[in-house]
């Protein structure tokens, strides 16, 4: 119970901090994905004229990519930034990356609301299958938390991790079929796409969101196991390293 209160207070802090002193506030959260979408429409929509509802296809990928990448980017720094608090109050450091996940879930909920309204003009079909988003979001959040927790714990000791992530992030973005379709990748490189766990999640999300279908069960189980496996590894890394956090921050 206390843990939930702390989590709530930290998420609220994140939301206030992010948009404080900005003129258009949380609208910034929409502008970034929108800008990417416009770029993709300009570059790719003619190329992918065979893809039905290209806007819907690209947006579903962009929204969930930014959900993941924001959690990781902010999560990596979250433990270091909490140094002042962690040095004076007995708190589990785990709370801080977790609060980034809840903050992003809040932002995503706002974005999805707009998405559901706007996408009716781009061929979105509203079905009960959309409820699949809830379990999918849960496993995707657990996966994102796992990655953020591993990197954040290591980043306390090696600040290179944060820089490394900033370097790899665009590469990972372009290697994930978000704006283009999977078949664009030449067959001899197709292993890159198949080995990419983020694409597995985005593919899963596109079942209810883009194709208005129930997800492929095999893919769902695959993603669930990736997510739990990542989370267990992250807990292992976290518990191994957390005792020295205070002195290393």
């Amino acid at each position: 119970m206390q843990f939930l209160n702390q989590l709530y207070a930290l998420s609220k802090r994140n939301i206030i901090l992010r948009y404080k002193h900005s003129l258009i506030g949380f609208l910034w959260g929409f502008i970034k994905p929108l800008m990417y979408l416009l770029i993709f429409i300009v570059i790719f929509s003619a190329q992918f004229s065979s893809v039905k509802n290209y806007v819907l296809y690209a947006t579903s990928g962009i929204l969930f990519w930014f959900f993941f990448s924001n959690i990781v980017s902010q999560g990596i720094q979250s433990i270091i930034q909490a140094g002042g608090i962690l040095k004076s109050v007995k708190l589990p450091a785990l709370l801080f990356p977790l609060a980034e996940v809840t903050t992003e879930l809040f932002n995503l909920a706002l974005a999805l609301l707009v998405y559901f309204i706007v996408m009716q003009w781009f061929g979105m079909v509203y079905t009960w299958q959309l409820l699949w988003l809830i379990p999918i979001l849960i496993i995707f959040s657990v996966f994102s938390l796992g990655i953020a927790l591993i990197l954040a714990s290591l980043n306390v000791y090696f600040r290179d991790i944060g820089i490394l992530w900033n370097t790899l992030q665009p590469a990972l973005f372009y290697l994930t079929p978000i704006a283009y379709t999977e078949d664009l990748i030449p067959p001899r490189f197709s292993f890159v796409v198949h080995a990419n766990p983020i694409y597995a999640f985005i593919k899963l999300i596109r079942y209810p969101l883009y194709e208005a279908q129930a997800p492929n069960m095999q893919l769902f189980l695959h993603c669930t196991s990736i997510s739990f496996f990542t989370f267990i590894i992250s807990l292992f890394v976290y518990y191994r390293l957390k005792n020295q956090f205070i002195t290393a921050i």
Partner: protein
Amino acid sequence: MSLLVALNHVSIRYRSNQSGIFSIKDLITSWAHPFQTKEILKDITFTLHKGESLGIVGRNGSGKSTLLRAIAGIITPSKGHLKTYGSIAPILALGAGLEAELTGYENIHLLLSLYGRKISAQAIEEIVQFSELDHQTLSQATKCYSSGMLARLTFSISFSHHCDIIIIDEVLAVGDLGFQQKCLQKINDLKKEGRSIIFVSHFPEEVIKICDQAILLENGLLIHKGTSEEVCQHYKELF
């Protein structure tokens, strides 16, 4: 008198590398010994009972803050036994845990939640009253606060809760005379209620005024233990 804190041969060490900066480059260039083990506290033994107040004095870097963090449960000792009984207030240090971009009010809410306390209008009103900060100041981001104002805010938030042990790390010095006296008064009231104070200061007079017992740390070793007058005398002789 019931026991509140018991330290039995407590040592705290941590790994650090020489440059203090952690990066892959350092790791590769000093691959043989990437981390050195540094002992901050060595073999500390003392006890604190209910109603007692303990002063901790020592040079900068002698391990005072680390000792406070160990008592507060933030750092686990690498050797020895540390037991605490009863509730411990968060360490009161200057600006501890305050978020510079948030306003005074937002910080009160945030810290109360993080400390695991109930937020009620009454609790907030008490904090505001004690801090003597006006509404306009509290609606400002705390980055605009002077150090005295920061001390007032942290002090007021920490004192708003009833804990058995109150840990104060070097904060009284920055408040103005009026607030210092108010804090000393509050500390005396708390002592009368039977609470224990652990107090770190570089001013021997304050330590003697507030604490009955004191310890002197030097390079992580506890070199003197006794009444605060005696220990402060030894402390002055260090310089």
